[in-house]
């Protein structure tokens, strides 16, 4: 992973010191709350329902065991002993004191971490495929480019007061595990006609009030022009994105209003006028960054399985289930990528305790070259586990409640913090996730249902990504009561789609039944081997609507 040099260390130290000064000036009254708010947001400090919330950046989800231990320390010392993995591969703490945050930032800087630009109207954390570097279908490691973009976008003086937040995602494989179509800029690594690495560039995706899929602005941008092209897009957005209405200020609205063709013309014109040579990514620059992501010292000739593992798999259904769902193919023979589930039955999706963090850090050191990833589906991934160690790893994860064998299944739910934590929310999402998790806990049943992504948002801001859930659930407030709107058929992958609303909102205690009904229709009408999403796309909404509403 990327290792800081003295330049990076100086930056985070200065940035932390700068924020300490800003906090002091806020407490002394030199800065009003209005003046302070954008400054604290640019350091990831929100004011939520109960307390401040600190969102710490995990660049493209990649963490070292040392960093995870430091996060555990922060959870214990400055918070209430747990953190929350977000849908943008970051981690949030829900109870820090403003007065302590400068100390927290210093503690983070010591392990090459920060909270820069995890909020505010600036370029946010660049997210990527959690299986970057190890996925067998990968064309090119997206982490290299995510890191390049991260550095370019860090405290960019021109782009720190954008009309609104700006999110970039990168996929390095044809299968999109980074949801690029739902980002302000989505980047798909590909090869050009000359075989050289470059990017398909998409613009104007996003969820929230007006979900939209990103559109291709350029089929192919050679790698050396990546930064200048991104800069041209941001340059146009900064000038022409709407600033009159917070809900119409994302780049997706600009693209929608002027059209992708005009957007392309404007960006190309801006790009033509730029001093592109100053932003050109010469191969030496790329190689310097790429060197940080060299594969670890894999052992060769490791076995795909062992007699012990085979035996355990036969005799222990829990282990066998975990092997089936949470263990994934790897480029390197004898290795696997492993999902560490943060979705225990009846648990809070994405939450992890300090004790669990430390256990995971130890396991990363013991089995996984000291690294792990946070995923935008609110789980963790060990990317490089020798397959011969899978049973030992599993037992250790079981002891920590991190071995739920549900990756990609119906109880692998994404949920935003919702009204239990978030000042923007209209309804709670976590209790619903817990109830659904309990309702569908039986593994055999989950396996029969197969791939089914439930995503829950507590308000229209859609931080739970409900628009792209196979089953999406949106919490609304109707006359002081919580109500849930259900959407079907959303998807965040390379065939992205926005879910369709199936009917009027459903009361909280009726939602698990509604999901049962939906699942029931699917099971009754699917073709052999057909996933929920494929069945929905084939059948349309009608049979589901009928089952849900006509019966009443």
């Amino acid at each position, binding site marked *: 992973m990327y290792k800081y040099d003295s330049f990076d260390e100086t930056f985070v130290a200065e940035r932390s010191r700068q924020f300490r000064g800003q906090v002091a000036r806020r407490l002394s009254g030199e800065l009003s709350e209005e003046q302070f708010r954008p400054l604290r947001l640019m350091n990831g400090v929100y004011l939520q329902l*109960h307390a*401040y919330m600190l969102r710490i950046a995990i660049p493209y989800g990649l963490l070292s065991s040392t960093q995870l231990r430091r996060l555990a320390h922060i959870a214990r010392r400055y918070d209430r002993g747990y953190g929350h993995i977000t849908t943008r591969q970051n981690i949030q703490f829900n*109870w*820090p004191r*403003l007065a302590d945050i400068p100390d927290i930032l210093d503690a983070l800087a010591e392990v090459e971490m920060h909270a820069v630009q995890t909020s505010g109207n600036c370029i946010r954390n660049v997210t990527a495929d959690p299986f970057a570097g190890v996925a067998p279908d990968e064309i090119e490691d997206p982490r290299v480019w995510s890191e390049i973009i991260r550095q370019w976008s860090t405290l960019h003086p021109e782009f720190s007061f954008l009309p609104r937040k700006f999110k970039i995602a990168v996929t390095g494989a044809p299968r999109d595990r980074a949801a690029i179509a739902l980002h302000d800029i989505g980047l798909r690594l590909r090869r050009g006609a000359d075989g050289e690495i470059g990017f398909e560039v998409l613009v104007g995706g996003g969820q929230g009030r007006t979900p939209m899929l990103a559109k291709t602005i350029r089929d192919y941008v050679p790698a050396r022009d990546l930064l200048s092209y991104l800069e041209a897009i941001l340059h146009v957005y900064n000038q022409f994105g709407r600033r009159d209405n917070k809900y119409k200020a994302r780049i997706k609205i600009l693209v929608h209003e002027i059209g992708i063709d005009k957007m392309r013309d404007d960006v190309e014109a801006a790009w033509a006028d730029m001093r592109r040579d100053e932003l050109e990514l010469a191969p030496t620059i790329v190689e310097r960054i790429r060197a940080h992501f060299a594969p670890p010292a894999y052992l060769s000739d490791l076995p795909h399985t062992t007699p012990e593992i085979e035996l355990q798999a036969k005799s222990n259904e829990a282990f066998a289930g975990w092997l089936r769902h949470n263990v994934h193919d790897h480029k390197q023979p004898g290795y696997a990528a492993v999902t560490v589930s943060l979705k225990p039955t009846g648990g809070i999706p994405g939450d992890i305790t300090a004790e669990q963090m430390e256990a995971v850090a130890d396991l990363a050191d013991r089995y996984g070259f000291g690294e792990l990833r946070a995923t935008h589906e609110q789980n963790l991934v060990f990317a490089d586990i020798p397959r011969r160690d899978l049973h030992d790893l599993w037992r250790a994860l079981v002891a920590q409640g991190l071995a739920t064998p549900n990756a990609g299944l119906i109880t692998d739910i994404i949920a935003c913090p919702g*009204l239990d934590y978030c000042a923007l929310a209209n309804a*709670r999402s976590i209790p619903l996730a817990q109830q659904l998790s309990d309702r569908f806990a039986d593994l055999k049943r989950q396996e029969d249902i197969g791939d089914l992504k439930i995503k829950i948002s507590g308000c229209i801001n859609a931080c739970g990504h409900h628009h792209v859930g196979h089953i999406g659930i949106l919490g609304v407030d109707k006359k*002081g009561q919580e109500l849930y709107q259900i959407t079907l058929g959303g998807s965040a992958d390379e065939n992205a789609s926005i879910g369709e609303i199936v009917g009027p909102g459903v009361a909280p205690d009726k939602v698990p039944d509604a999901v049962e009904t939906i699942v029931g229709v699917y099971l009754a009408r699917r073709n052999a081997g057909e996933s929920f999403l494929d069945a929905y796309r084939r059948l349309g909404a009608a049979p589901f609507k009928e089952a849900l509403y006509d019966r009443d």
Partner: protein
Amino acid sequence: MTAKIATANRLLDGAVVYLGPDGDWSEAIGGARVARDADQAAELEAQGREALAARHVVEPYLIDVALSDDGRPVPIGWRETIRANGPTVLNQTGPSAAQGGGHV
């Protein structure tokens, strides 16, 4: 007019606080000063602005409350109930819960 109280978040630590009769802001909603008419409500707002200017709180605002039998304010609606009592999904919740704040 529905009864109202003033609430805010404490600047230093973000804790939810309520304006009491003596002008102090505390985490216990039960002791909050209740406004029963427009003048009293205006007074609460003025104190909120003062506390903001004095850098004691951020984002002060008024909320509607119901009154219990002994006249103590009770939050209305999920949002303010959760602010008063903490998340519904943790065993450890806000300080008010320790005082038996009727948490769901």
